[in-house]
């Protein structure tokens, strides 16, 4: 069995012998080092196994017992930590040996082994002075590795690193000296055992400062950034992954010493760690160099891990997976969380560093440049997953660890801690995703596309440029790929553990992602893949059917059945479109999971899965880089708010409100809506049908499920009666109706069809929020009714429009016209959709309106009713504009001569939806009765006098008989039609321009097709309502955070002496924080 001391000896022997062995042959030393590194990793795993049986492994040196000689001990935490270090060491060793440009020769490899020796010594030794020696070995071998870099600024970075390293070891040495003087011992365990010591505060202060400076705390970490920026990516990965992990393990080793004799120090370190995490993320936003940004990110992650470690209430979470792992590894929960964060950071960060090696240049891509890796799966998959892991998104260990931390903070009521972590990680999400999105942006993507692109000269849109030339990553990509695979499998293992108690279903989306990605890999024809997707969805629906109650059945129908029908649309795809189906199926399944989760963790896991998969769908759009960044930012901000509310267990006064705001952001309510048009419109046509008709209901569904919490007042405990009386529902109601109006108004003045439909979706969601907030039987029935019918007609509209865009190649309405002759079926489906949407009687729309106004009047919200009617009038306007500019009016000569009807696969789902709409219009009870059954549980119908008389539905205010209306309309329509047919026996068809044009003959369709700026008079009258306000507000917020970030990063002025000065300031600050006086 390999004892720790043998590892140290082996590393040492390798370090000494490699320069000589290099003479024997380059290949030899490469294979030898890889073998030895693998051996180290295997040894650490064997320790983990052995410790499980026998407890910590202690090995003495020099044949004497501990205090007299130096001893090394490896407890479970150290063993697992070392396993992480050796794993990253193996991967980075392999990377450095085979990377093209800066291959490590004999000398660098021996320095590398000296580094590994130093790190393992750091973690194992129990003797404080010996710790100093190993710290020096690590730093000096790192300086040596820095020398072998390529960036000529590395010496400036190295010099600053040495000054900081020198000062920190000076402080450490003074600390050890005086500690020896007070306690007479150098061995850590003996000192801790000595009780009743004189005040060890000062020596421990110096000791901790020595360690902390190496861990790059806030004021004194300028040098670290310069090192990250100038070092090779390989060395950067080594520093950020292995060095930080070892030093954090050292800090954990010293914790008992600090807790015994210097409690003030722990508090000060906590504050410093929190500061480092937050401010490093803040400054990270302003970065232009990729590696420096990763430097800031690793500073932040170190700060986060320390912050979690040191905060007293971090280990209380009794999350299922966590407790199983803790019992398996015999660690306590705080250690498991720290371990998870360490692994997550080490593997993901080193993967990202290695991936920067393959980028053309270190500087971040400007928004207008073509990303190096658009559509290049080899590079994008590891990079994307690494970014996900770092921002703690499922299924990576970081997600579970962060969930455990936040819930335990919530349990202990540590709101400040939650706020710091969530806001900080939101900042990190911003700059990491910005980097990722830029590397894969499309050539033509101006990077700032969130509004429709209307060319000045009315010329039809240029044909899209072919995908740019992308760099093929060398096969050395295996190193980052391998580390990501290991990280994902760890994350999945944890996921399986924590969801095994009856929630295995929640893992299905991941399985589906893997399965369909496999199909993509083996390049099945798209049609086959689509059928498999449908089969998968069908199977899933069958699986969860048993667990659905009334309410979830309805949303199940919306989520699963709705998407099943819309999958037909994908059949008209000719090219491979790899990557579309896996994420699409994953999104739909995670939506389905929202119906069947059992614990708040299950809910949040599926919620984040949905966010992640929908992000990867939006990002496929040709000009979707800016829109997808906004989408991920807002979705995650909303998700973090929800996480806060879940962690707080809805006890806090405002958590109900924060939870509601989180959902409103996801639904795109007014004020939070600026991500919605970009995401829905810029995504691919097939994807935007799913996004707007299915995904937008997710927030609404959660509103329904957690309805219980909205009973609270808005300002609980507010002084005067009026404030206390405002409850959340009133606020939600006003938000809903204003969103409805704003959505409709904004849709009115758009030139691009998809933007019109996106804003119209926003308007419809406003209606749903309004209906929900009425909190009565009729109100909820209306909300559900609107949800279902919105799926139908919005799906119909988007599919028809997708067909039109595919045929005409443009999205601008004024460039089309007169398509009714070429695409009659699309015309009918759009006609039916706009009748249903605007609420014109015979079809389902009117049912929604009738239910809405009855419930509003019952509730007494008369003003809302008035505003809702006005916005439904405005809705009628943009719908007519849509159908007129596309299908009616004068067809453009020359452009659309030879276009055919939309492909058959697009028309089948439209036909299905049309039939369903007609069905529900004829027999509204078919739809309303199940909705009432769903709502019955919460608000009984009888209480509000809602009853059925035959096919007429009665409410306390009025009545409505859907079938009668349909028959009367049919009758009233057919009789005049018959009359006209009889009278107009000999009708003559005429060609295009045969119109009464005041005796002239119009020859140019552009002038006679009235389409551009259709409602200019309306713009003059009510244009002021639609000025850009929310956009400016959010841009102001981004700018101020940028400015703040700029302010923070100015501290790192680049001057080596100022960095030394920062260290002295840090010492003073630390002393003050630790409660010291002068």
């Amino acid at each position, binding site marked *: 069995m390999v004892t720790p001391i043998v590892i140290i000896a082996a590393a040492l022997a390798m370090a000494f012998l490699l320069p000589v062995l290099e003479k024997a042959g380059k290949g030899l030393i490469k294979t030898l080092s890889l073998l030895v590194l693998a051996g180290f990793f295997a040894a650490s795993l064997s320790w983990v196994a052995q410790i499980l049986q026998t407890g910590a492994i202690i090995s003495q040196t020099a044949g004497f017992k501990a205090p007299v000689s130096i001893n090394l001990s490896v407890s479970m935490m150290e063993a697992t930590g070392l396993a992480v270090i050796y794993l990253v060491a193996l991967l980075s060793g392999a990377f450095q040996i085979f990377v093209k440009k800066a291959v490590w020769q004999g000398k660098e490899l021996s320095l590398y082994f000296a580094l590994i020796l130093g790190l393992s010594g750091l973690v194992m030794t129990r003797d404080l002075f010996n710790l100093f*020696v190993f710290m020096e070995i690590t730093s*000096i071998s790192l300086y040596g590795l820095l020398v072998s870099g390529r960036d000529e600024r590395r010496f*400036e970075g190295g010099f600053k690193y040495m000054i900081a390293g020198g000062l920190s070891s000076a402080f450490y040495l*003074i600390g050890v*000296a005086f500690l*020896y003087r007070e306690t007479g011992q150098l061995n850590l365990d003996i000192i801790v055992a000595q009780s009743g010591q004189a005040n060890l505060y000062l020596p421990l202060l110096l000791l901790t400062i020595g360690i902390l400076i190496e861990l790059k705390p806030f004021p004194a970490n300028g040098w670290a950034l310069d090192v990250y920026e100038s070092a090779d990516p390989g060395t950067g990965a080594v520093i950020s992954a292995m060095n930080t992990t070892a030093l954090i393990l050292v800090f954990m080793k010293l914790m008992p010493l600090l807790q015994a004799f210097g409690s003030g120090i722990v508090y000060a370190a906590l504050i410093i760690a929190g500061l480092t995490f937050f401010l490093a993320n803040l400054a990270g936003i302003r970065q232009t160099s990729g590696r420096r940004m990763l430097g800031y990110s690793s500073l932040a992650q170190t700060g986060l891990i320390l912050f979690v470690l040191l905060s007293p209430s971090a280990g209380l979470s009794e999350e299922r997976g966590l407790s199983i792992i803790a019992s398996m590894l015999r660690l306590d929960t705080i250690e498991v969380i720290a371990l998870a964060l360490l692994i997550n950071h080490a593997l993901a960060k080193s993967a990202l560093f290695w991936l920067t090696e393959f980028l053309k240049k270190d500087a971040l891509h400007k928004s207008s440049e073509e990303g190096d890796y658009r559509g290049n799966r080899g590079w994008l998959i590891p990079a994307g997953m690494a970014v996900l892991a770092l921002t703690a998104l499922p299924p990576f260990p970081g997600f579970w660890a962060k969930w455990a931390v936040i819930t335990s903070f919530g349990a202990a009521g540590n709101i400040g801690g939650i706020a710091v972590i969530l806001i900080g990680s939101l900042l990190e999400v911003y700059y990491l995703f910005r980097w990722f999105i830029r590397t894969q942006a499309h050539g033509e993507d101006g990077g700032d596309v969130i509004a429709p692109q209307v060319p000045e000269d009315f010329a039809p849109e240029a044909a899209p440029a072919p995908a740019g030339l992308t760099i093929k990553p060398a096969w050395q990509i295996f190193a980052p790929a391998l580390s990501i695979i290991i990280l994902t499998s760890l994350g999945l293992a944890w996921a399986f553990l924590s969801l095994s108690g009856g929630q295995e279903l929640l893992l299905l989306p991941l399985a589906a992602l893997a399965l369909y990605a496999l199909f993509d890999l083996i390049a099945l024809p798209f049609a086959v893949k689509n059928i498999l997707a449908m089969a998968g969805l069908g199977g899933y629906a069958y699986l969860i059917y048993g667990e659905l109650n009334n309410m979830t059945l309805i949303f199940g129908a919306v989520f699963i059945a709705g998407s099943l029908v819309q999958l037909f649309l994908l059949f008209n795809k000719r090219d491979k479109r790899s990557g579309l189906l896996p994420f699409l199926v994953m999104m739909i399944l995670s939506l389905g999971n929202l119906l069947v989760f059992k614990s708040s963790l299950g809910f949040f896991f599926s919620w984040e899965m949905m966010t992640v998969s929908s992000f990867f769908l939006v990002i496929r759009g040709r000009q979707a880089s800016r829109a997808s960044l906004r989408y991920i930012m807002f979705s995650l901000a909303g998700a973090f708010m929800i996480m806060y509310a879940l962690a707080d267990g809805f006890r806090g006064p405002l958590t109900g409100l924060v939870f509601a705001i989180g959902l409103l952001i996801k639904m795109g309510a007014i004020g939070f809506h600026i991500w919605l048009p970009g995401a829905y419109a810029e995504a691919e046509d097939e994807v935007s049908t799913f996004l707007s008709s299915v995904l937008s209901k997710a927030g609404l569904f959660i509103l329904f499920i957690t309805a219980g919490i909205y009973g609270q007042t808005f300002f609980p405990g507010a002084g005067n009666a009026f404030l206390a009386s405002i409850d959340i529902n009133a606020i939600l109601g006003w938000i809903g109706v204003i969103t409805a109006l704003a959505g409709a108004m904004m849709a009115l003045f758009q030139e691009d069809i998809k933007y019109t439909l996106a804003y119209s979706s926003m308007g419809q969601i406003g209606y749903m929020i309004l209906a929900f907030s009425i909190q009565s039987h009729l109100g909820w029935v209306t909300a559900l009714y609107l949800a279902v019918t919105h799926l139908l007609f919005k799906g119909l509209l988007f599919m028809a429009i997708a067909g039109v865009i595919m045929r005409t190649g443009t999205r601008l309405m004024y460039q089309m016209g007169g398509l009714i002759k070429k695409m009659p079926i699309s015309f009918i489906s759009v006609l039916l959709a706009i009748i249903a949407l605007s609420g014109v009687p015979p079809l389902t729309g009117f049912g929604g309106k009738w239910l809405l106004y009855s419930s509003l009047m019952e509730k007494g919200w008369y003003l809302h009713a008035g505003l809702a009617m006005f916005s439904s009038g405005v809705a009628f306007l943009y719908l007519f504009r849509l159908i007129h500019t596309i299908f009616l009016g004068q067809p453009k000569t020359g452009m659309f001569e030879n276009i055919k009807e939309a492909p058959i696969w697009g028309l089948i789902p439209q036909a299905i939806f049309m039939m369903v709409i007609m069905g529900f219009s004829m027999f509204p009870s078919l739809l309303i009765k199940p909705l009432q059954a769903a709502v019955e549980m919460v608000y009984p119908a009888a209480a509000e006098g809602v009853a059925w008389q035959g096919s007429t539905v009665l409410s306390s205010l009025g009545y409505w008989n859907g079938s009668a209306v349909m028959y009367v309309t049919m009758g009233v329509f057919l009789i005049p039609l018959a009359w006209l047919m009889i009278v107009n026996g000999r009708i003559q068809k005429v060609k295009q321009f045969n119109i009464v044009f005041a005796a002239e003959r119009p020859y140019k369709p552009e002038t006679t097709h009235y389409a551009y700026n259709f409602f200019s008079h309306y713009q003059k009258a009510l244009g002021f309502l639609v000025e850009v306000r929310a956009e400016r507000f959010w841009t102001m917020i981004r700018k101020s955070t940028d400015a703040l970030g700029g302010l923070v990063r100015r501290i790192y002025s680049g001057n080596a002496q100022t960095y030394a000065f920062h260290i*002295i300031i840090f010492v003073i600050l630390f002393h003050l924080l630790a409660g010291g006086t002068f």
Partner: protein
Amino acid sequence: MTQLLYILAFVVMAIGLWGILSRRHLIRMIIGFSILDTGIHILLVAIGYRKGGTAPILDEALSKGEALMNAVDPVPSALVLTAIVIGLAVTALMLSFAVRMVQNNPTMNADEHKELKW
């Protein structure tokens, strides 16, 4: 005597630290570093010193018996030995980095070496 040694150690360390922080010339900064190191070594020796202590080497003059009474504490001297060698290693490496830095940007003033910032 010990009091004197401690004060001397802190004075030398203070001078060394002042040298690092205030003097802009690269070589002077490194000299400041080596002075700081020397200060620390004096401190370590002072920790081990005992009133009227002699070297802990047992020979005719100092038999095993009396060693316990008036020999100096051997542990700090062992530590100093290592510290001095490490101090040399760091100083030498820092000098070579300084040489390469100057080669890249031929000025001795630490303020001008600010290519890496923000």
